[in-house]
């Protein structure tokens, strides 16, 4: 199998810190072995450095909000940790001491500072534990409104939800521009996840060298484009086994044209809305397989009228082709449906996902897709601006979607808030995907609701309705935040999904799922003919008397990367399950008799057809 995987190694590693190819191969085999070594992999046996009390104090001091922001809402004094709470806020003990800075203290009221930042959750060192990458943000010059980037941070999981910062050791570049999002993909198919960080200015491709370090390959990859990039997603568009890259552009704002907006000359200043600016083009970079990318957005017909803030790569219409769904701010959302070859057809309007129920564009931000109602078809989910319901788009088959927000009991829920980070994940282990939505305004004073807003968790009642369980979600949910990106994954290896949330000028929060662990399987899909991370694949596990379908996707949520592994809850009594996979190549395979309660690496072309 590894010799097959080696076929994908077309990137030169001459610039990496370990230049010995043989050593890298050994590392690769070792890493894959570790990943495949099932249950023991989730708790590292390496020596750990637990977070100290001083780190917690440092964390607390980091939490001081900038003077421009309204004071953080006080937590509900009656809100104490309950026995039924879904999440524990373990930020203080996690060792992750990070605050995304947006530079609003410059008082320039730039639209740049409204976007916020994301979180990357992936196993960068292939030790079987999910690590956390925090996008850095930046500062804004108080005189010129020019942004400067702050260093992103990488935290290595050392087990038990504790992390060590390894930013310097891993050579995460210090000189990135003002950064927003991150997405993880294996652009060289070497088995080590690489990362693309989106920025205002020059976004950054960080190649994972496999030795715990990254190298900036942006220029040599042909990605050194000056633009305002926000969200990104990897996916193999042309079926050559290489991960291509979709990057959304936002607006043509520059510091030179920055000015605050006022409702009237005597009123206070605030950020100008995106309607004051023009959209900038999205980019669709084709991976040429030799370390370089080529932008084919124009030739493939990517529309130029969107203000992208979210993008999702997955097969959303079950035709075996990779699709891209783009959430645009104040402009119509775009759905690019893939077909054979490298062509895409934009079908947002005709599929019913471009607008709200009344045919008007909304301010869309976060994005995700999963089968919510259990019919095997993937619904789409989008978070929107205030006074716009978040949109649940029910898949009716044949590429048609229908607004079902009201039908699923989500109408009005969170309507007054500005929705950003979101995701469809089974947090309570009943096999139905639940939902989280984190909110925060973009306006400091002019919004209907304050800058800091509550976050929500909705439980899926067997595919019929969502109910608001925020009151039981945990103490972090009892306080308002200016939240933006968030990522989901099983940080502590207990089979229950945890949550990491990035908020503007607030400490990044580590929320450990404390619901009792159910029975589960965790699946890491590895492509051989498909891309190494087979975005677009579909996984089906029969459990609880139904087919539980999950997507391998990239770019979901908001500016963030959740764990690409799939965790599916199964009945407590089950000891083994059968897993069906539809690979992006179109191949159907069954992997029978997988033991529950542990991890599995599912390798393409090693199951039964």
């Amino acid at each position, binding site marked *: 199998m590894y010799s097959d995987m080696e076929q994908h190694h077309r990137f030169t590693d001459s610039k990496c810190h370990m230049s010995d190819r043989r050593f890298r191969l050994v590392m690769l085999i070792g890493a894959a072995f570790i990943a495949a070594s099932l249950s023991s992999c989730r708790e590292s046996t390496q020596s750990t450095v637990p977070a100290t009390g001083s780190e917690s104090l440092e964390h607390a001091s980091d939490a001081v909000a900038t003077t421009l922001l309204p004071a953080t809402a006080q937590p509900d004094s009656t809100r104490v940790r309950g026995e039924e709470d879904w999440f524990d806020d373990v930020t203080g003990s996690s060792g992750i001491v990070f605050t995304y800075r947006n530079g609003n203290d410059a008082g320039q009221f730039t639209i740049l500072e409204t976007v916020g930042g994301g979180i990357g959750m992936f196993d960068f060192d292939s030790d079987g534990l999910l690590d956390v990458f925090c996008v850095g943000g930046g500062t804004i010059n108080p005189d010129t409104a020019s942004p400067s980037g702050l260093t992103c941070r990488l935290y290595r999981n050392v087990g038990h939800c504790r992390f060590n910062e390894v930013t310097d050791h891993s050579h995460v570049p210090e000189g990135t521009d003002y950064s927003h999002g991150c997405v993880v993909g294996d652009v060289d198919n070497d088995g080590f996840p690489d990362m693309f960080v989106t920025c205002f200015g020059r976004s950054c491709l960080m190649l994972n060298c496999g030795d715990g370090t990254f190298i900036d390959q942006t220029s040599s990859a042909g990605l050194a484009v000056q633009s305002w990039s926000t969200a990104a997603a990897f996916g193999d568009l042309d079926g050559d086994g290489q991960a291509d890259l979709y990057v959304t552009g936002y607006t043509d704002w520059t510091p030179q044209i920055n000015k605050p907006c006022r409702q009237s000359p005597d009123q206070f200043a605030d950020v100008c809305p995106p309607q004051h600016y023009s959209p900038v083009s999205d980019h669709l970079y084709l991976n040429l397989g030799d370390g370089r990318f080529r932008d084919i957005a124009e030739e493939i017909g990517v529309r130029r009228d969107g203000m992208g803030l979210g993008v999702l790569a997955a097969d959303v219409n079950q035709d075996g082709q990779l699709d891209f769904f783009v959430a645009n701010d104040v402009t119509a959302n775009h759905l690019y449906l893939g077909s054979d070859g490298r062509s895409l057809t934009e079908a947002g309007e005709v599929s019913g996902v471009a607008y709200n129920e009344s045919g*008007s564009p909304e301010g869309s931000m976060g994005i995700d897709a999963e089968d919510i109602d259990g019919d095997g078809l993937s619904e789409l989910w989008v978070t929107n601006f205030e006074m716009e*319901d978040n949109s649940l788009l029910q898949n*009716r088959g044949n590429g048609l979607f*229908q607004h079902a927000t*009201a039908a699923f009991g989500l109408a009005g*829920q969170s309507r007054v808030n500005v929705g950003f980070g979101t995701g469809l994940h089974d947090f309570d282990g009943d096999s139905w995907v639940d939902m989280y939505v984190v909110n925060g305004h973009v306006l400091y004073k002019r919004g*209907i609701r304050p800058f800091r807003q509550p976050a929500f968790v909705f439980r899926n009642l067997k595919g019929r309705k969502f109910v608001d369980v925020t009151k039981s979600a945990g103490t972090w949910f009892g306080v308002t935040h200016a939240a933006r990106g968030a990522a989901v994954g099983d940080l502590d290896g207990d089979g229950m999904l945890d949550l990491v949330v990035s908020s503007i000028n607030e400490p990044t929060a580590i929320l450990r799922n404390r619901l009792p662990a159910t029975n589960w399987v965790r699946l890491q899909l590895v492509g051989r003919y498909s891309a190494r991370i087979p975005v677009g694949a579909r996984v089906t596990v029969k459990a609880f008397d139904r087919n539980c379908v999950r997507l391998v996707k990239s770019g979901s949520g908001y500016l963030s990367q959740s764990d690409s592994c799939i965790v599916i809850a199964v009945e407590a009594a089950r000891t083994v399950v059968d897993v069906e996979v539809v690979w992006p190549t179109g191949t159907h395979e069954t992997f029978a008799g997988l033991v529950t309660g542990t991890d599995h690496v599912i390798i393409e072309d090693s199951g039964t057809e």
Partner: protein
Amino acid sequence: MTASRNSRRSRSPGKAERRASRRWPRFAAVFAVLIIAPTVWWAMSNDTARVCRQASELLATDPNRAAAMLEQAVADAGGDAPDAQLLWTRALLAAGRPAEALGCFSLMSNPSAADPKKLLQLADAATSSGNLLLARFSLEAIPANSSDRPAVLHRLIALSQQTGNVGPVMAMARELLTLQPDNAESWLAVAQAEEQQMELHDAVRSYGEVLKRQRDPERRAFVLRTLVRLQVLLGEREAARSSFEELTTTTALELADRINEVLLLRLEGETEQAQQKIEEVLALSPDNMLARETHGTLAFNRGDNDTARRDFEAVVRDQPRNKQAHYKLAQVLLRLGHQDEAQKHFQENRRLTDISTHILKLQASTAVGTAEISRLHELAAAYAQLGQLETATRLRESARRLVPVDQ
């Protein structure tokens, strides 16, 4: 000195007589000044008051004659008869001569000196005749420390709402609340101002304050109706349900209330009940297009495409510029396999959406003078394209009224 004078008198009595005879004109002058002039003045002002009384009686039947009388009276008074001038302005208004009325009022050197009650009367007359600029001028002439200030504020707020100039409404409403903190109408003014400025949460709270003070069932019903609408808009299910329940105990439900109930049920996720209620509404009023569209939306959501198509087609026929009906019809046509027809309606939705976006941009912008007039005309044209002719007419009227200010 006195002895000397006496001696002089005794020496030349003829001279004294002459002097005495010369004093007569002086006495006459003094007499005229002290007695006759006030009498004349009294007579004249009495005459002005008399003319005013006569003119008042003529206002309804012969306003032109009343205006002529008052013009003469003002001229006779040397232009210094504020009450007569106010009445003259009213007469001109009643005679259908609004420009002259505005001119007449603007000739007043100090309208603030006039009786506030009469200024209020003029404002009411100007408002009734559609001369809103004159109404505003006359209200603004009433001093801020007048005991009539609350009445002035109520009228100014109503005027601002009528002209769409909601900017100053909030400040006026808050002043009103300061003057009459326990008055339901003061809270109502604040609530409406907050609603207009899209401060919906504050508006809901202020409407709640109105309810605490308002006992009149009709006014309560009005407020409860507004609350249901706003709470549904904000997605506040429980609060909206509570307001709706109170509304049902306060008054008989109107058609709009029943449609709001359907929207509330949908918000609550009770789509089957919503379906049942909308059927009831349509049975009462089959031509209500909002109900028809809601019926179609519910049908579309449950996959009843034929019913949805019939409903949306009916709405589009009745309201060809209803963009969301076009969009919904396009979607249902797509499902039924009529792609070409669907595209036409998608296209119409896009066209109408572009106009709406343009309106939003125009509304967000501000201008002064002739630029403001152009902006209002552009807005009016955009609204006319959307088929909202009443709004378009109102905006054109507002633009027209701005002309005299610039000139």
